[in-house]
């Protein structure tokens, strides 16, 4: 199993969730990217996803897309796949992914930190 951690710019979240839906295990995968709770050094906001995948899953991420058994916007999924960049730091306009490293190392390589202040009173 290989860990893949992705930083998705706020503007691409809907497309990225369609990609997750297309490649995932069910309709619930449309919730893969949630609120943009992370930010880069210049304040751009990102939604993050980090999960383990097998080799086949990793290959599917970059392979030809096909419609799953549930509703999915393949055009949006294709746009997200086109924006995917392996090994890149987070940046507006692309979905940066770090592969095969721990979540902490991936966050450092992506260059993102939580947008909320420490102990921000969230419950």
């Amino acid at each position, binding site marked *: 199993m290989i860990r893949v951690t992705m930083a998705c710019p706020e503007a691409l979240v809907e497309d990225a969730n369609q990609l997750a839906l297309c490649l995932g295990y069910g309709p619930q995968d449309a919730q893969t990217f949630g609120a943009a709770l992370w930010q880069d050094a210049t304040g751009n906001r990102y939604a993050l996803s980090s999960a383990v995948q097998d080799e086949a899953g990793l290959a599917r991420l970059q392979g030809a897309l096909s419609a799953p058994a549930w509703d999915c916007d393949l055009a949006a999924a294709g746009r997200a796949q086109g924006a995917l960049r392996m090994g890149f730091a987070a940046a507006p306009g692309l979905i940066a992914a770090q592969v095969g490293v721990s979540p902490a190392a991936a966050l450092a390589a992506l260059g993102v930190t939580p947008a909320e202040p420490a102990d921000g009173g969230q*419950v």
Partner: protein
Amino acid sequence: MLGFGLGLRGGSGASPGPAAIFGATSYADLMFADMGRLWQDSAAASPVTAQGQPVGLVSGLGSAGGQALQATASQRPTWQGSHAEFDGVDDYLDLNAAVRDITRNASGLTLWTVFRPASVAFMALIGVSTTGATTPRVLLQVLSTGALRLSYRREDGDGSTVVDSASGVVGAGLDHAVVLTLDFASGGSEALRVWLNGMPVISAAISGTGNTSDTAAARGRVGGSLSGAPPTPLTAGRIYRCGLARRACSAAEAQLLTTSLQGGIA
């Protein structure tokens, strides 16, 4: 530091654990060391069979029929033998209604967990909310100062009461066994107590007495807070075990429970 790295594994051990302590009282005990109770998916179709696989559902021990599950594949923690590893990015589990409703119309509660934070940072370990996402009936967090924070309310109309331990009681990379009791019925100066590795770290009064509101608990989570999607904050690190019972255990029982959480004694 009170996190001494005692080699806790969240095992049931030989010491009386939740089953012996709570008996017929409604409780749920979620043990990530027990592979037979773990599933890779939230529909319980594919069992966990090897380390590194995702945990989509854990079936709890106890009379409540409790489960914790995550329907979104990318937001599942991974199983690492003795524990579930939460990535601090988007992993958390939802408590099902059976666990959440342990807190409904309850005269007391006991909450326990064994965890190892990857770093000392703001994180949420386990909590249940009442009528909405931001109204914790009970919520246990770690602060960036290394303090434990308990937030709770008895009645739905109450404001949240927040109580912190001293700073520095939680250490990065160390195992911590927490037992927390809320005695809503009795009240008094020690109605709220928290033990960390058997040491008392919080003792406080609860204003008013009586049961919690008779309202269905709307949300419960392990490894994440009660607001947000994904929640913020999240746990980054290990959770070996956690649970909830519909009774405030005594101080003596809390010590027995701690010993059980720490792996048991003869």
